[in-house]
């Protein structure tokens, strides 16, 4: 995304849900991929040819923090900073997280992951409820007067 040079204050609230089925693995196995740095290194990262890790920490317990920051080849630095609020082993994870781009906070979100059995495999339901801050730039076609309703509409359509 492109970040406007002058800060324009705005908040867009949004909700989206993504579901995935993973064949031949248990819900506990999927959960485990969230529960350790070894697991998260396998998927919660950017392609290594485009991105270098600056910091990666994970304290996987209620009240614990997770940080992941990296520098893209373009020079852009992104930071993910999460706090865990609910952990039910094999079943559910709830954390809040903020995202920063080049030091600028672009969103604060609540992320919920539900791990469910599905046939011989597992189903993952991820829901993100977010406040998206100050950040967007839609190449000059924005319609400021309708921002509020457009945000609500998008949230509805995405939901």
């Amino acid at each position: 995304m492109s970040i406007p040079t002058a800060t324009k204050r705005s908040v867009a609230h949004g909700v989206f849900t993504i579901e995935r089925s993973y064949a031949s693995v248990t819900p506990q196995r999927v959960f485990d991929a969230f529960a350790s740095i070894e697991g998260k290194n396998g998927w919660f990262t950017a392609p290594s040819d485009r991105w270098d890790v600056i910091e990666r920490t994970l304290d996987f317990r209620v009240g614990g923090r997770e940080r992941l920051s990296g520098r893209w080849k373009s020079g852009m630095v992104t930071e993910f900073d999460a706090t865990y609020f609910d952990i039910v082993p094999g079943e559910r994870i709830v954390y809040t997280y903020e995202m920063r781009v080049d030091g600028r906070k672009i969103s604060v979100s609540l992320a919920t992951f539900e791990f469910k059995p599905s046939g011989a495999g597992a189903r993952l339901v991820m829901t993100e409820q977010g406040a998206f801050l100050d950040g967007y730039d839609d190449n000059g076609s924005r319609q400021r007067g309708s921002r509020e309703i457009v945000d609500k509409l998008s949230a509805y359509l995405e939901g």
Partner: protein
Amino acid sequence: MPTLAVDLDLTFQALADPTRRGMVERLSRGPATVSELAQPYGMSLPAIVQHLAMLEDSGLVRSEKVGRVRTCRIDPAALSLAEQWFNQRRAEWDRRLDRLGEHLQRFPDGEPQ
């Protein structure tokens, strides 16, 4: 109509009806003709055209008539900013959860030691 003059009351009114929300949802996937829009609803064409007129008044939907066919689309200017924002975050998670699937296929029994 000046682009900044979208009336929020009209917009809320337009979206207060399930048929019109369904039409917006359909149009968010791409342009459609009036008869395509009408197809899921057991309504007369005039009733559909009336719903469409409210959506057009609200500024959410534009339509143009070419020959005998009226084609409707979401006003891209009205939707682009928030759509772009949410779609981007969602796409990030889509990619991550795809990578998670590949990771689980490689290591179905547990994390690599």
